[in-house]
């Protein structure tokens, strides 16, 4: 679906993106993770044909992005982080207009609005929408023409936990339909939950690329922390791999004296910090 080889791009004389190579298969959710200014959005703009002065090769849906035609956009749905709606028009009017630009039979606007819980506000002007409502509306705009490739930029940004959950479920539903999804985010939790593979991007380069599970496992086994009472509360830790050789833990279990025990796996964020030496915030 997407093949990028030796991609380089520059806004000035110094390179902004350099030597990027990766591929994304059909039906995959692929995440771009990185701090602000790392090059994630620029990469997305190249992939959707907005920036065409790059070097290397960037093939999306069989088309070299710099040679894209208008037809290219029949098969791509883009959800920007910011609202791209006519504020004076209602949500329904906006969706009807944008869906009319495509040759494909559009998905029913009312159904899409209902899916994101906006059916009651369909005839409200977008200017009167909250940030979260605009986010949801922006998302379904990308789905209007039922494209096989979705490019989502921070789709859960500004959403409350319930709506964020709903949005993530919708993304997984689209994946289940066989769609390829590019997810640009700095929310590690979302990436770990949704993505089949993620690429860590820092300073315009891919620092690591693998599935979230493999990346987490690469750090080593989870740690087990336990507490017990013996002249006050005490705690100790051991790695999950060596749990059977921890004599103190074995005796505490045998004597039924454990106060608490829990394991803690490294998060994708820990891995990101380990690999890049940077945080996402």
């Amino acid at each position, binding site marked *: 679906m997407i093949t990028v080889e030796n991609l380089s791009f520059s806004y000035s004389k110094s390179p902004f993106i350099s030597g990027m190579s990766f591929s994304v298969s059909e039906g995959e959710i692929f995440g771009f993770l990185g701090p602000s200014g790392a090059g994630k959005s620029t990469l997305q703009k190249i992939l959707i044909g907005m*920036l065409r002065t790059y070097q290397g090769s960037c093939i999306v849906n069989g088309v070299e992005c710099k040679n894209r035609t*208008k*037809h290219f*956009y029949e098969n791509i749905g883009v959800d920007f982080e910011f609202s*791209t709606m006519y504020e004076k*028009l209602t949500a329904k009017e906006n969706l009807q207009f944008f869906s009319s630009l*495509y040759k494909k039979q559009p998905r029913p606007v009312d159904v899409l609005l209902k899916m994101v819980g906006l059916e009651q506000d369909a005839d409200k002007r977008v200017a009167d929408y909250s940030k979260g409502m605009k986010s949801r509306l922006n998302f379904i705009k990308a789905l209007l023409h039922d494209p096989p490739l979705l490019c989502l930029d921070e789709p859960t940004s500004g959403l409350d936990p319930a709506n964020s959950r709903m949005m993530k479920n919708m993304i997984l539903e689209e994946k289940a339909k066989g769609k390829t999804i590019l997810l640009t985010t700095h929310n590690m939790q979302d990436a770990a939950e949704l993505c089949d593979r993620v690429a860590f991007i820092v300073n315009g380069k891919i620092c690591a690329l693998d599935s979230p599970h493999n990346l987490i496992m690469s750090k080593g086994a989870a740690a087990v922390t336990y507490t017990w009472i013996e002249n006050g509360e005490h705690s100790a830790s051991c790695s999950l791999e060596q749990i059977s050789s921890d004599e103190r833990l074995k005796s505490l279990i045998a004597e039924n004296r454990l106060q608490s025990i829990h394991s803690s796996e490294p998060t994708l964020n820990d891995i990101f910090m380990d690999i890049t030496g940077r945080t996402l915030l």
Partner: protein
Amino acid sequence: MRAIRLSFFQMIAVLRRDMMLLVSCLAPILAGFFFRFAIPLLETALTDSFHITSIISPCYELIDLLFAMLPSTMFCFVSAMVSLEERDEKTVSYLFITPLGKTGYLFARFGIPAVIAFFATAILLSVFKLTALSPLTILLLAAGGTLQGMIVALLVLTFSSNKLEGMAVAKLSTLTILGAVTPFFIQSDTQYVTSPLPSFWIGKAILEDVPLYMLPAFVLSAMWIYFLLKRYLGKIQEKIN
């Protein structure tokens, strides 16, 4: 073509929600009634009061000339304001990545309004003209006026970054129309100071009744439009970056 047409109708839908822009579109008709009926009445009243044979009537040609530029300037100004709003709302960036594309967008916002402006100018000028303009002159004036309107629209888009700035720039941009006035009031070679303005040559064509003067007007308009369009597209690309 379908996407271009739909995008143009979308602009009309936006206009319907904006009274200021809607009235701006109708302003040439109101101005036409004023020029055609109120000015001759005023002329009669003034000449009767001052017992002079003519006061305003020597300027009727100039009034026709300025009126010829009004519909296109207003239509193109309205398009520019809608486009600025779309830039503020970031819908432009989104429209560029739909089958409409950048070229389609430019056609919908400037091409179609310019064509409409051309026909509207030709019709309104035929109805409201104060002097005996030939059909050929009317068509040439409509074409010159349309190009002038496009220049005003592109000046607004190139030198302003939001609607508020757009209003201010629009007022300044309409000064480019004043080139048409120069040959009427300055007989010496000093008049050529305004010769880089296409409107100067339109004014000269009407005043001296030499249609050939429309040629430099068209060439200059094309040059202005080319350079402004290039700057405007550069500005849009900066926004995308």
